[in-house]
């Protein structure tokens, strides 16, 4: 092989090595990114579920009924004023001092919403805040977790209670 050909071969081989290594790292990083560990959001969801069950088991000032019984009672009477009022009072008291001060509690039967009660700082406005370009300076990020539980109605209906909780992360 002539000296000129050898140098040409050297350059091509070097380019090939660089190309192969680059391609390899690209493939590995792409595949690796697909395998990034999952966030264990289930843990947070489980905490929300405990909050939801505690809420449903809590006795209200309405004739000593629990919240789950009051939901079933309100559904049978088709009057949700009392449950909305007492739910708001309960959750505002419980969550106001916490970092998780955004919440929505709603109930549904066969995908038909019965009522919902929410914190004054609604989830929709906080989602808008996240999209706000100035929000990058605040360093605040709100994580949402939700949980649901079935509660029986008086006539064996299956009412679903859903709690969505928004917590600030600094």
């Amino acid at each position, binding site marked *: *092989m002539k000296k000129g050909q050898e140098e040409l071969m050297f350059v091509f081989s070097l380019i090939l090595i660089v190309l192969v290594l680059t391609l390899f790292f690209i493939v*590995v990083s792409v595949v690796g990114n697909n395998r990034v560990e999952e966030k264990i959001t289930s843990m947070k969801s489980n905490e929300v579920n405990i909050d939801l069950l505690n809420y449903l088991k809590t006795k209200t000032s309405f004739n000593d009924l629990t919240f789950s019984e009051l939901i079933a009672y309100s559904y049978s009477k088709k009057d949700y004023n009392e449950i909305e009022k007492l739910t708001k009072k309960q959750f505002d008291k419980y969550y106001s001092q916490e970092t998780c001060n955004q919440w929505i509690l709603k109930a549904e039967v066969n995908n038909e919403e019965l009522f919902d009660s929410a914190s004054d700082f609604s989830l929709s406005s906080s989602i808008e805040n996240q999209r706000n370009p100035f929000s990058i300076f605040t360093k605040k990020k709100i994580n949402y977790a939700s949980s649901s539980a079935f509660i029986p109605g008086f006539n064996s209906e299956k009412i679903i209670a859903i709690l969505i909780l928004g917590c600030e992360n600094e």
Partner: protein
Amino acid sequence: MNKKGIFMPTLAIAILFILTYAFYVFVVKDPELNYEANIGQNVIELVDSYKKSENDLFYNEQAIKYSLIKATEKFANNGGVKEECNKVWVLNSINCSPNLEDNFEEILKQELTNYNLELQEFSMNDNIINIELSDNTYSSKKRNFEFRYTVKHEFKYDSLIDFGKINALKNSIESCPVDKRINQCLLEGSLEGSNTIYFTIENNKNTFTLSPLPEFKKINFKFGINNENRGEVKF
């Protein structure tokens, strides 16, 4: 071709081969590596099962409570016997015998079926009602991980009516000699009509009831017994 000239192409081909082989071995050949990367998957399944079991327990607890309320109202309205007996007890008869616990259990079984629940065990002790449903099992089987989580569905409730008092009355009626009229043995009954004496056991507490509509009221248990034809009493 001299050695110097062949070194770089050989190195390039060797690197290409080694990296291709490494990619094949670690990525293509062993797809289960993806499984290994799912950190916390097993814990998530375990936590989800626990969550589901807690929710099921809560649902069943409430469903039994409502079934008990409805069963108690029906039982009290029927005077502890079947509806066709018109609240009148006939001791040791086939249909109108006051087998209080059995009759109550029968009504409760029917009420529970409305919630797709099946009664496994039922017992009553000092106005405490013990109810047992079938156990719920939550399980998962995966590579290197398997769990089976069984939850017992046993519940205790206070009775809404005083079974102790009703049973005491029943024992007094049964022990009343046949040659005596019931109102000679027991003073608390009131004669209604020609020959039937009625007893009322009042629950002085306002109870949350469901029939016909949800409301708060006192559940009263009233039954009657014929003064002369009270049934065959064995002593």
